[in-house]
């Protein structure tokens, strides 16, 4: 009888899992698992995007900047990154700490109130910690020592990314609790894009331009690969934004729709602006516009409607286009426009989103504030959060870059830079018999 009884219990498949992991929502878990994989797809996407844009002698070195981030940042994330980001405040809220999270020990059977195993959430968040320093690498592409880069992203992850992530996304982070309902950063406009863009800019201003810049022509080695990489980034971004809802329902759908619209509007706007200004609509331009739109919608995806996403995409592209023109005038060498796209696009998105917040969010915020909450009050919160991210990332990056340059040398020697990163640091060739450039 006992045997039959337990057999009957096991028969309906769900009953087994319900007992095994009570409180798990399989729908949300399934989408979050998918999102986690999608965000990881963005890193090879970024590697291809950046790799295609550099000269043929630097393609592997540049792709390795993204790929090594997957190794270094994942290991650090498991060891202490998750504890620093999502533990309770320590050191007056500078970052979080929970020794239970060391090596993710406390997560083995943990299920979050959203209905997903905490492992899924921690791995999902870990992907953001990978892509952020990988974006910075676009600024100082083609001219840094590989070993120093590895040390830099490890230190940057610990001292810049983890505190920022804690401030914005942890329940007791101070930007999470700023104003009525927190500074709005749905999927990482300040944490990921502004911090990476500004850090790239600061690093470049200190390390200097590539040899021969701007006199020599430095043509992209393979724009086909850049296009594929840009496409993968768009696909992966659905995990980045829609996954950031940590649910599988209405808010997920809202974020997904906004993401699609902003990317398309951004690409289209770039094509039109460039066609009007330069006479030709370039492939690189279109894919840059897609990225500008995606970056701008990242902080906003949870709170804006498709109409707002459309405006954000166009505005981000217009301002990124102007920023790159200005860069060429000023003559600093942000090689692959980490600041021009991610920094500027992130700032545009985080600030302008204020004017397109859906009414229900404002109503909730007003309730939380105890009566009224205006757009301009939220605008103040957004600007404050952006400025905090800019100043914090900028200052810390400057200190890190100076220390690394003075101790181990961040910048390549002129000989290594002329040889190219591929041979100098990896001993390999990216392309076979492709024409030299």
């Amino acid at each position, binding site marked *: 009888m006992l045997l039959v009884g337990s057999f009957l219990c096991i028969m309906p498949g769900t009953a087994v899992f319900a007992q095994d992991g009570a409180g798990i929502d399989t729908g949300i878990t399934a989408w979050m698992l998918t999102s986690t994989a999608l965000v990881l797809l963005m890193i090879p996407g970024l590697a291809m995007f950046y790799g295609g844009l550099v000269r043929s002698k630097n393609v592997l070195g540049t792709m390795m900047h993204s790929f090594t981030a997957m190794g270094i940042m994942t290991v650090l994330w498991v060891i202490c990154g998750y504890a620093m980001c999502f533990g309770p405040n320590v050191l007056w809220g500078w970052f979080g700490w929970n020794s239970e999270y060391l090596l993710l020990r406390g997560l083995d059977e943990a299920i979050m109130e959203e209905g997903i195993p905490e492992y899924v959430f921690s791995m999902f968040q870990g992907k953001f910690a990978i892509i952020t320093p990988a974006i910075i690498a676009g600024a100082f592409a083609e001219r840094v020592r590989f070993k120093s880069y590895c040390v830099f992203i490890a230190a940057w992850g610990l001292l810049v990314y983890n505190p920022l992530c804690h401030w914005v996304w942890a329940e007791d982070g101070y930007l999470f609790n700023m104003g009525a309902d927190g500074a709005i950063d749905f999927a990482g406009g300040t944490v990921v894009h502004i911090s990476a863009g500004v850090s790239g800019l600061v690093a470049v201003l200190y390390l200097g331009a590539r040899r021969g810049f701007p006199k020599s022509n430095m043509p992209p080695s393979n724009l086909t690969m850049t296009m594929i990489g840009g496409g993968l980034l768009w696909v992966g971004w659905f995990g980045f934004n829609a996954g950031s809802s940590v649910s599988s329902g209405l808010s997920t759908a809202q974020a997904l729709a906004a993401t699609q619209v902003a990317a398309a509007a951004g690409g289209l706007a770039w094509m039109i602006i460039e066609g009007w200004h330069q006479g030709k609509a370039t492939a690189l331009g279109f894919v840059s516009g897609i990225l500008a739109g995606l970056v701008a919608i990242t902080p906003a995806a949870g709170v804006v409607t498709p109409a707002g996403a459309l405006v954000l995409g166009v505005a981000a592209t217009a301002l990124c286009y102007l920023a790159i023109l200005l860069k060429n005038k000023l003559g600093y060498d942000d090689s692959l426009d980490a600041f021009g796209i991610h920094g500027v696009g992130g700032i545009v998105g985080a600030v302008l989103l204020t004017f397109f917040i859906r009414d229900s969010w404002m109503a909730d915020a007003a309730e939380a504030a105890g009566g009224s909450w205006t757009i301009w009050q939220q605008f103040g919160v957004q600007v404050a959060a952006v400025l905090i991210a800019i100043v914090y990332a900028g200052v810390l990056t400057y200190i890190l870059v100076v220390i690394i340059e003075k101790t181990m040398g961040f910048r390549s020697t002129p000989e290594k830079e*002329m040889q190219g990163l591929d041979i100098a640091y990896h001993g390999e060739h990216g392309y076979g018999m492709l*024409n030299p450039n």
Partner: protein
Amino acid sequence: MKLITAIIRETQLDMVHERLIENEITRITVSRVSGHGQQRTEEVYRGKKVVPSLIPKVKLEIAVNDDFVDLTVNTIIKAAKSGENRSTDGLIGDGKIFITQLEECIRIRTEERGPSAI
């Protein structure tokens, strides 16, 4: 008129190119080639040492008037050596320079011929 053909290491291309431009030798043709010489480089792929049978090199072709032959050749020699002390030690595999008589040179646009077309 002479045709100077130099086979050099890929890694020295930028160095040679920059030095040539500094000496106002700006009209050059560059291509990737591969071939056999005395050099046997070992490369490591996935931990396995392999000796490639054909080694990738870069070929420069420069047509010059007779007065510029020495300047061009000396510039290439200095910049293409890959040893620690570039003025004296070269390494096996640094390449070769061939100088050949150039019978005629024609600029297509204007149909000029001879030294002024170079």
